[in-house]
């Protein structure tokens, strides 16, 4: 019952929006704005077929590789930099500089250096996604409670055990906040990296449709991107709830007090 209610709440607004869209496109013949019927027809025709394998899956593949690599690298480097004071002082200004560079401007540079390859696109995704994970991990590691750290120390928990039992779980809430940002940046960069110079992928296909005035198809590509975003967000929430169950419980208790 509770689940049904949740689904009903979640679907209500999309249904209303589609109804508004349907009502406002009734009787118009604007070439650039398709009706819900034309769009869904175009969606089915365009995406249920060969394009899944030639464009959608390769894009999602690059996105996953890029995002996972960014998360792993970001956490690993963040643990190291966060734990070592001099390394933090040493790297912080440089990190701020790199972080401030908008990743899309790297695409022309990386195209020259790496050619128009899958690796280039993955590198673009990593170069943009790694920052929120890295900087949040550093902050999370720095913010470890001193009493908790002393407790671990007095019980002889050091080295790798310290990272596993103390540092990682303690920084997990901040790391997950970084991962959340990383996912949305990843989707953006996936599309942009394919718009510049590419022969396949979602970003490329959408631009192709636009250039060839296949307007309903172009819109349907945007819908696909939105759906991928929603799917990623659901997977993230599911994982986050599992990893941070203790944290949400603790927060609830603290807020109730």
């Amino acid at each position: 019952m509770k689940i049904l209610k949740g689904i009903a709440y979640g679907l209500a607004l999309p249904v209303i929006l589609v109804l508004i869209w349907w009502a406002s496109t009734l009787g118009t013949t604007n070439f650039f704005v398709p009706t819900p019927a034309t769009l869904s027809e175009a969606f089915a025709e365009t995406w249920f077929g060969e394009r899944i394998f030639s464009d959608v899956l390769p894009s999602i593949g690059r996105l996953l590789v890029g995002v996972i690599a960014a998360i792993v690298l970001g956490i690993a480097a963040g643990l190291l930099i966060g734990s070592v004071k001099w390394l933090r002082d040493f790297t912080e200004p440089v990190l701020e500089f790199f972080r401030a560079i908008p990743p899309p401007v790297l695409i022309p540079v990386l195209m020259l250096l790496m050619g128009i390859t899958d690796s280039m696109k993955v590198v673009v995704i990593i170069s943009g996604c790694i920052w929120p994970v890295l900087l949040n991990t550093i902050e999370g590691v720095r913010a470890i409670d001193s009493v908790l750290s002393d407790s671990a120390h007095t019980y002889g928990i050091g080295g790798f055990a310290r990272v596993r039992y103390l540092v990682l779980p303690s920084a997990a809430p901040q790391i997950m906040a970084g991962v959340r940002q990383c996912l949305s940046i990843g989707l953006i960069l996936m599309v942009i990296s394919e718009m510049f110079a590419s022969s396949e992928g979602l970003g490329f296909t959408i631009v192709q449709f636009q250039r060839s005035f296949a307007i309903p198809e172009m819109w349907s590509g945007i819908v696909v991107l939105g759906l991928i975003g929603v799917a990623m967000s659901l997977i993230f929430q599911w994982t986050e709830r599992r990893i941070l169950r203790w944290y949400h419980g603790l927060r609830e208790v603290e807020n109730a007090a």
Partner: protein
Amino acid sequence: MQPETTPVSTGRTLPEGQAMLSVRGVKKVYHTDGGDIEAVRNLTFDLKAGELACLVGPSGSGKTTLLKCISGLLAPTEGEVLLDGARVTGPPKKMAVVFQEYGRSLFPWMRVRENVELPLKNAGMGKAERDKLVDEALEAVGLDHVPQSYPWQLSGGMQQRVAIARAVAYQPEVLLMDEPFAAVDAQTRADLEDLIRTVWKKLGVTVLFVTHDIDESVYLGQRVIILSSSPTVVQEDLEIDLPDERDQLNTRALPRFTELRHHVYEQIQRAKQGHRPAAATQAGSAS
């Protein structure tokens, strides 16, 4: 800081080789941007194996600093701490610490049982032995019914019990407690005091119990070490000659309890007023 001569610190000491825990001439100075802060000037005392001693002093007398030096979390500026004859340079294996801030000393992402088990697991102990020790420890503190809860689902007093269970399961020879009951309510506190006496008797562990509560120090200890105000030295090292069987109602009603309590209170008041112990009077109590 002040140009006065360092008083001879005056806790009771034992002949070499007989002490479980030796604090020798410990001094701790924090170097800060605003200048040096002398938290502990010169402290010397010994604990023999199996002794339960309370350390009481006015607030700001460097009790926590001393405890951190003893537990190997801080290096003393001068002097040394010996555990069973070996110099303490880092947290020793045979020592456990219970902190005041129970909410910050247990791992909130681990269940009660996992919290108690972790130090043993980390020490590489086998599963069967671990389970046995954890079960015993949880039972000893009266928490065998909540092993699957998270610490933050428990009340403050119960969380501190978990911390005590963790220390007990670790099988330390020396148990240090830093104002462990300062943040729990009075009734829970009385229960926990009795729990400490029970656990101490059962395990034969050496306990150093730091507190700012005078009643608590007299009720719990075989001995009360009174610290002066900062810069800290030992004000007095007092034997508590109350019967070994103590309970909250009868022990606290004894005339001797009142006398001892009165005496400690007086000493703390004098310490607050800046009275420094003279070497001679202290030597007398060192017998």
